[in-house]
């Protein structure tokens, strides 16, 4: 802990930010820089590790430790660091291509292990750095440079994927909503183990307006289903009700407040959070935002280090001479 409270400026590096004008990344960076002082963690104990892609330039702009690594592999480097250095707070910055295409394997395994990583997935539904090919979250039929006749792949829903991968904390927010993003970051920071945050992020060059429906003043009130633990899940016009084993979005005018689903982020049963995640796919007419799932499970690094501590407390610390001289030995005179 620092002696003096840190400010946003203390977390801003001297590097010139080089994203395109209007990029959603600016707002996420600014929100992060403003949020970090709140953690009360010294700058030297915070590490940002990223992969490759526009979003992965993020660590250069923060006055903390940082590594801009290679495509898709940030969770692996971050895992080794977080496990071996439990005193550090480790963030992973990634994008939809980095996390879900080339790095898909590492993302799911980090989540199932529950490594102490806060993973921010900037989802702009496009490959920006390589100048505009479709990504694993692009809607089917997307016309891009590499798919002039429309993309054929069924997209990933990052939240569904994370829940399926046994994630203990999964949230979704929007780049331009600083207040909401900050709330989600705060909850993720307080969470033990892996936290995955999907951030809808606008790419003004290659996929501009992809998230307008959840950003424009005219439409967002209806589109954003706010999930707050202990409160009814609803937008300004719609609410969520049970529909057999599933969930259904209905107009508020057609139901009474008491029929609405009360959000339980701590529900151990992943099928609840999964059902929430299925309410929005490529089309964004009703998008749950907030924390889908926040359950308690020991962090992987904690388990690893406890196992070491436990064996040492039982058997004492290892003695190299004893190790080398153990087993079947014999003396030569």
């Amino acid at each position, binding site marked *: 802990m620092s002696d003096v409270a840190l400010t946003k400026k203390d977390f801003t*590096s001297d*590097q010139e930010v080089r994203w395109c004008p209007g990029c959603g990344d600016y707002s996420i960076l600014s929100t992060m820089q403003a949020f970090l002082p709140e953690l009360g963690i*010294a*700058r*030297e*104990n915070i*590490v940002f*590790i990223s992969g*490759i892609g526009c979003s992965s330039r993020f*660590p*250069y702009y*923060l*006055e*903390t*430790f*940082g*590594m*801009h*690594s*290679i495509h898709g*592999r940030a*969770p*692996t*480097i*971050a*895992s*080794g*660091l*977080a*496990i*071996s*250095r439990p*005193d*550090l707070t480790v963030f992973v910055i990634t994008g939809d291509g980095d996390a879900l295409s080339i790095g898909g*394997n*590492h993302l799911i*395994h980090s989540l199932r292990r529950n490594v102490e990583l806060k993973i921010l997935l900037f989802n702009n539904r496009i490959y920006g750095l390589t100048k505009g090919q479709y990504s694993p979250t692009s809607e089917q039929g997307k016309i891009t440079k590499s798919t002039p006749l429309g993309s054929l792949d069924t997209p990933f829903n990052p939240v569904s994927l994370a829940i399926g991968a046994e994630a203990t904390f999964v949230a979704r927010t929007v780049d331009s909503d600083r207040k909401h993003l900050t709330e989600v970051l705060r909850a993720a920071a307080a969470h033990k183990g892996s936290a995955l945050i999907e951030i809808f992020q606008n790419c003004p060059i290659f996929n501009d307006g992809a998230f307008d429906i959840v950003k424009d003043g005219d439409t967002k009130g209806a589109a954003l289903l706010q999930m707050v633990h202990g409160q009814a899940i609803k937008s300004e016009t719609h609410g969520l009700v049970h529909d057999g084993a599933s969930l259904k979005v209905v107009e508020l005018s057609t139901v009474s407040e008491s029929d609405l689903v009360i959000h339980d982020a701590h529900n151990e049963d992943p099928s609840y959070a999964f059902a929430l995640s299925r309410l929005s796919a490529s089309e964004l007419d009703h998008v749950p935002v907030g924390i889908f799932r926040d359950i308690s499970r020991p962090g992987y690094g904690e388990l*690893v280090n406890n*196992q*070491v501590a436990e*064996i*040492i407390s039982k*058997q*004492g*610390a*290892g003695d*190299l*001479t004893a*190790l*080398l*001289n153990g*087993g*079947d*030995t*014999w*003396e*030569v*005179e």
Partner: protein
Amino acid sequence: MPLPLVKGGQSEQDKGVTKPVLSLDQVTIRFAGDSGDGMQLTGDRFTMDTASLGNDLSTLPNYPAEIRAPQGTILGVSSFQLHFADHHVQTPGDAPDVLVAMNPAALKANIKDLARGATIIVDKDEFTTRNLSKVGYETNPLEDGSLESYKVHGVALTSLTVAALASLALSRKDAERSKNMFALGLLTWMYHRPTESTENFLKTKFAKKPEILEANLLAYRTGWNYGETTEDFSVSYEIAKAKMPAGKYKNISGNSAMAYGLIAAAERSGLKLFLGSYPITPASDILHELSKHKKFGVITFQAEDEIAAIGSALGASYGGALGITTTSGPGVALKSEMIGLAVMLELPLIIIDVQRGGPSTGLPTKTEQADLLQAMFGRNGESPVAVIAPSHASDCFAIALEAARIATTYRVPVFILSDGYIANGSEPWKIPSVDSLPDLHVDFAQSQEDFLPYLRDPKTLARPWAIPGTKGIEHRIGGLEKADKTGEISYEPANHDFMVRTRAAKVAGIDVPDLEVEDPSGEATVLVLGWGSTYGPISAAMESLRANGENVAQAHLRYLNPFPKNLGEVLKKYPKVIVPEMNLGQLALLLRAQFLKDVISFNQVRGLPFTTAELMEATMKVIHV
């Protein structure tokens, strides 16, 4: 439960053997059977008993990649060869003096390796018409005279074992499973090995399965008694202790020695050992061994794939741990990009490649040295790394410490090129005292103003090891080209040229000892230059050639990148340089490129180490052109 002492059991064994005893100076035995017959265990036990008797030895396990290949087929034969002697042993032996064949497939697969006059012990119960025809024997070789030039002992191993265990409540199938212990008991009698250690081993292994323990002990003792009492075996043999430097010894495989060396490196450097690994033959035993030693603070992380394995090791290294990854050739291929990142980040990292036959999946359980060029060049861009190779099984201990020295001093990835032969083979190892091990103390960057993450030590050209958690030196690194000193992103042409040359100079400048040449007569004109696991076979061949009056020099490279500084002179001094390699000439290519020396390659890629005879012949051809 008290164990029944069979007639002629332990108490009588102690009184000694009553048949004539012949003295031998060395023996090579090969145990061969189905991959489910327990031949590796049998060989291991015989090795341990031989080691504790004070013979020098070398072993060669050889098994199929399939866990249980079809029973009774050539494909499924697993073998374990052991060479032991009253003098220094360099190799597992060319031709076995004794073959133990548990079935016709084992006989057929191995007979071609035997010299005439060798002893063959077979389980004659297994020589049924069905088993014979399975491997293409039209007549029974035990009866058709085809084995006339060998000393054949047809022993009813299976039925004798089953009969000996009749009093136990075991199925016939379970009883038969102890027949390897019968064979081990018989060989133990033949070569006067002590029985205590194997009995203790069985007692520990089967502590929770008393009936299996009893079966194994009974079979073991029955095998011993069979040798002692039947007329089939009229003599037994003893091999005197080898003269070895005084000290405490243990028998050790290359993979175990590697694991111990890594733990020692962590202890001597004060760093936390972090192994990121994905299981792969023949490297997995290093992961297994290290995972047993968590009380040293060792962290073993079985990652989701080869990339995550090295990524986690690099992440741990970034945090100030001794980051290590273990793999084999196919795994190295997957790790290439991360090795490149480590080159760019200039962080310490140890990559252990236990080489196997390639390309692709290749020969997972067989040995080869064909990853040298992959280690040297298998990445995009100019991406220099240090490459070193252990010469024999117990040398893996020292090489691990050496890798840690280079990695931490120069902040550079270091490849260790071991291979399946020395990884699984074992030999006696004089246990070093911990005080005699090198001091690997490491200094991290301290808190300071205006920290420059790429400011180099003028002597080593290493940049600071600046780990998170150190106040005031927060900085960002990555795979993009770095500006000199500041480490900021730089696309400047001159800077890139400078940085590429500097990274190369750093690796080229790694301090490595001079190459020593063994040239006892001083008159040799032919130098045999090897690297890695060929050391034993080459040394044995050179010894034999010199004993035959030939002048020949030998040198062995432990440092492949950078090469020892005097290598050029050594190559110049000898008109003819033979380079034996278990590849198609990879070291030769490097030597020709760097020194313009027209070396003579001698290559084999049969998945097996060179034999002494092959190397002698190849060298003789060059000496006497």
